[in-house]
């Protein structure tokens, strides 16, 4: 959209009875067009010798490298290892972060006890803990699960805690007026109103988990997508590095999209979106 007038024209088109495929999906088409143009430019800047493919690779080279990795089966093992690390680390972060966040949001004293640790660790780049984690857990899968857990647990915990704390005062009045006990106030008001924030925490945690996978595996591992990228990079196999980048980006986008959709579904529960 370039100007106000063109936006208004678009709105008119949307309201019209005869909307063509183009007007209905204009944004999608524009996006696809831009991506296609970019890929062509990338490809031909290598073909025409403007850049060295050792640095930039090229779309067709990446596809070839990816196909080769599928054919010789090496990619499956890396995917399985990284996937397992992610599932365990992220799952553990949810199992620990959500209940702790709820407790810290609800009990003032519990929060006062844990807050210094949470604040300190949340502010520390968790990657800085990697050397320590390698010492503790070695270079196999456990250390990656640990770093993914540590990366993910704090955004989930802190957002859940905020969700439990930001209860609409009117809701509390309603519950109290009906004679709600503290326990009932918690289950019928505090828990459901924390759901939107909890989901935001899960989405933010996702990004941190992916960083954890890649950096953790680059630091010290024997398999996984990050490990594959590390070894390919060290031997200037740019095409294979690109395959890894694309896998990570695609997974990140897909999972974020899924969580975004769940979040939108619960957006009406958010305090400031009421009414």
């Amino acid at each position, binding site marked *: 959209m370039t100007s106000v007038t063109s936006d208004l024209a678009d709105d008119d088109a949307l309201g019209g009875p005869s909307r063509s495929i183009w007007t209905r999906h204009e944004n999608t088409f524009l996006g696809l067009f831009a991506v296609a143009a970019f890929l062509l430019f990338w490809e031909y800047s290598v073909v025409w010798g403007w850049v060295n493919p050792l640095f930039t690779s090229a779309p067709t080279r990446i596809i070839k490298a990816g196909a080769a990795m599928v054919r010789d089966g090496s990619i499956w093992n890396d995917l399985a290892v990284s996937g397992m690390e992610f599932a365990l680390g992220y799952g553990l972060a949810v199992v620990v972060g959500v209940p702790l966040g709820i407790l810290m949001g609800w009990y003032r004293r519990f929060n006062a006890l844990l807050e210094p640790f949470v604040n300190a660790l949340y502010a520390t780049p968790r990657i800085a803990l990697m050397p320590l984690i390698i010492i503790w857990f070695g270079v196999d899968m456990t250390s990656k699960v640990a770093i993914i857990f540590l990366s993910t647990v704090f955004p989930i915990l802190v957002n859940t805690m905020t969700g439990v704390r930001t209860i*609409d005062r*009117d*809701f509390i*009045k*309603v*519950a*109290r*007026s*009906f*004679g*709600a006990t503290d326990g*009932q106030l918690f289950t*019928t*008001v505090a828990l*459901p*109103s924390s*759901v939107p924030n909890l989901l935001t925490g899960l989405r933010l945690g996702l990004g941190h988990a992916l960083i954890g996978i890649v950096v953790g595996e680059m630091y010290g591992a024997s398999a996984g997508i990050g490990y594959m990228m590390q070894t390919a990079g060290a031997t200037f196999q740019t095409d294979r590095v690109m395959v890894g980048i694309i896998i990570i980006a695609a997974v990140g986008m897909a999972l974020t999209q899924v969580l975004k959709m769940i979040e939108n579904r619960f957006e*009406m*529960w958010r305090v400031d*979106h*009421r*009414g």
Partner: protein
Amino acid sequence: MPLDATPDASDARAVKLSARGVRIDFWNERIKRNLRVLDGVDLDVREGELLAIVGPSGCGKSTFLGAVDGLVKTRAGEICVDGVRVEKPGADRAMVFQQDSLFPWRTVLRNISYGLELQGRMPKGEIRDRAASLVELVGLKGFGEHYPHELSGGMRQRVNIARALATDPKLLLLDEPFAALDAQTREFMQVELLKILARAKKTALFITHQIDEAVFLADRVAVFSARPARIKAIVDVDLQGQRTLETKLQPRFRDLQERIWRLIEEEAERTGLLTSTVGA
């Protein structure tokens, strides 16, 4: 004009709510002092009547209602419902708040059954049936499975009223329930509220800052003085016939409205909210 709140001897109906010498102070953090909000409120509400409270803005009407509900602590005096002293919120009272404050994660039906679920007085099936019958009572048949954000402001306020009625309170407390609605919807909801209350046979205490709303709905209107509030006057609303939208066109309606407005005006002038002379 009866200026005191003691029950009229000729009225045989039982006293549902009686407030005697109710005093409420609020601590003001800024000036580090107690502010007296209510200074000895005496009021009786009789079985089956709708009593409206009006008064200058910020006079403590809502605070009084909160005290009747048991959400606000009194400094002195006592409030009794059916002779039982109010200490905390209870099933014999239910509040309709100004903000509809329906839970967005509950359907209309489940919002209505909220109070009953908390109080756990009846089995689940019975709660569901009762909620369903209230959906009909407030004229929302077919909307039971909808969520609050799918409803208009007027519809949400109906659900809000139904939620309060669900627990079958002896006394219904309404805190400016139509203040957030647009003018047209408000008028319709006023008529609707009278119908709902007649069907549900409830005693009600209604707070409003709109004089026409008070006169239209109430059997009696209590006028609060400026803060610290006491009852300044109680006006009997002696309108003939059933209340419809035409009622507001009766000369008697205008008279009552004017009389109450004068009383509030006096208070506003006394406290400087309104200056009696118009000038530069």
